[in-house]
């Protein structure tokens, strides 16, 4: 019995090893794997006092104040390839009794303008600040332009001002990045 059993065990073993295989699987599907995270990230914020719009020394109005910051992550090559859509959300809280024009100008490293957007901010009062929300959705071709930018210039323009103007223009903002790797 043993003489019969020994070759047969070997055969079983050999069969198992040689028939071992990987089936019912399709590794080409790896091509379809896509990470699609949606990232929420703060952008810029500021608090602009009304007196910033009047030069008390020279007694003149300052109609536009401007500031610039780098946002170097935006023109990163990985992000350029993977960013499908970006949704900017700006929330202004205005207690200055003036409307504002706010311009966002995105610049490349060489200071070429790649993307612009702008919004009007409604006037409020010191007692009752008014909230203005603004959403800018960027997708498709525009994404290519946006991701050429590495800095943003924010310009805040007031139609008129005087030395007695009171209140604050507050901005909070965030961006939702829709990525696909």
């Amino acid at each position: 019995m043993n003489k019969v059993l020994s070759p047969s065990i070997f055969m079983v073993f050999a069969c198992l090893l040689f028939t071992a295989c990987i089936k019912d699987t399709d590794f080409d599907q790896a091509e379809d794997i896509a990470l699609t995270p949606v990232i929420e990230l703060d952008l810029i914020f500021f608090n602009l006092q009304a007196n910033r719009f009047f030069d008390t020394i020279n007694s003149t109005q300052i109609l536009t104040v401007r500031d610039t910051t780098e946002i170097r992550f935006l023109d990163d090559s990985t992000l350029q390839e993977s960013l499908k859509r970006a949704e900017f959300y700006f929330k202004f809280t205005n207690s200055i009794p003036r409307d504002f024009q706010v311009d966002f100008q995105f610049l490349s490293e060489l200071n070429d303008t790649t993307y612009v957007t702008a919004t009007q901010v409604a006037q409020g009062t010191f007692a009752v600040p008014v909230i203005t929300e603004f959403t800018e959705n960027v997708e498709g071709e525009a994404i290519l332009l946006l991701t050429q930018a590495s800095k943003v210039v924010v310009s805040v323009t007031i139609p008129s001002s005087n030395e007695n103007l009171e209140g604050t223009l507050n901005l909070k903002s965030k961006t939702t990045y829709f990525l696909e790797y």
Partner: protein
Amino acid sequence: MRNLLTIILSLVGVFGVSQNKQILYGFDDIPQSLMLNPGSKVLQKKHYGIPFLSQIHVNGGSSGVSAYDIFKDGNDNINDRITQKIFEMKNTDFFTATQQLELINFGWRAKNEIYFSGGIYQEFDFIAYFPRDLAILAWEGNRDYLDYEFDLGEISTTGDFMTVYHFGLNKQISKKLTVGARLKLYSSMFSYRSVKNSGTFVTRLGDENSENIYEHTVQNADVTVETSGYASLRDLDGAGQVTSEILGRAFFGGNIGVGVDVGFNYEINDAWNLSASALDVGAIFHSKDVENYRAHGTYTLDGINLIFPPLGDGEPTYPYYDDLEDEIKEEIPIDTLYNGYTQFRPTKFNASLSYGFGKFNATGACDCLNMGGENLHKQSIGLQFYSIFRPKRPQMAGTLFYHRRITEYLSAKATYTVDSYSFSNIGLGVSADIGKINFYIVTDNLINYSNLAKAKSVSLQLGFNIIIDEE
């Protein structure tokens, strides 16, 4: 990123278990069983492993997912399957890979009846726990997880590549008891670990008093990666140089460690047998070529605060972005440290209780395998226990086995194992003596051999020895 993911997922299930050699343990017919219990009963007089062929061992596995789970043919989307798996798996699920290659293995029985054995083998050992929270963050982002604290402490992984020099003694000290011990010297070629990490990352919606819409907070982060044998490789050029540098360390050129294996075999009576062993009780002392990275701290990101400073023409504004980067680096610094560390080896514990029956006397005239006059059983059945210490918790396995000496030249062992990977692991091992040449092959997860993609783990050991029996 996607390529890396593909490679990891493809490897899953193609490699096999976490160092458990449940079939080889107690399989006395194979000299390498002495490597699993230095106190096991040695039947032969001498053995020589055929260099580089005496034991080839690969195993690896993944406790939570198989290649089939991800890549199966079907109409559903592969990304949905991955999503489902990410949420199904726990942070205690893990991926492992182990590989061993014996360069030399030999043993002989001296006049004082001590069986000496020694050799050299190379080992690669890797484990990574599934960092579930970070996987979710990478896969889905933080939008749907506001207020959820992503746990950075789930990062837990180690990897070691080393050469082991060993020498052991084995002696039957009474009719019933055999004991043995083995001294091991480890020569580490490359090692890294990132364990005992902590901290959280959370995105919270700010309130009226918050600076901005969100507060992104890294809280009490303490994440460390320790490496040895890595810093000097970084400056080398090309694979050729790296390979020769690593191989140079195989001969005590790198970091050294020391450890022991101990074990015994006790024959309770004619039928019952008890054995146990502890392997790799030791540590490697990393002091040369060590480079560690540690990031720690707490930081809340609010975005960039524009000041609108009054500026003259051409005057630059504040470097907000650089300042922000500096601030983060200050609050969560990444330190590079060069202090040595001690890496404990993953200690393995084996135990077995068996019941033997049927007297083995192959030829009748010459009881060739049994010159000591002891009872060799024709068949035995029993239970085995295995555990290995891993960074988060020990992994354990229980095995039922059946061992049978079929002829003088052939014996086989079948196992059923329950472990972290599955409840349906059937293994089979065969040892054959062809003249003085002993060949063995053992493997588990046979049920999945018809489709390896479904296996969460596979283990395979095979090798050739020259055995000289007692005369």
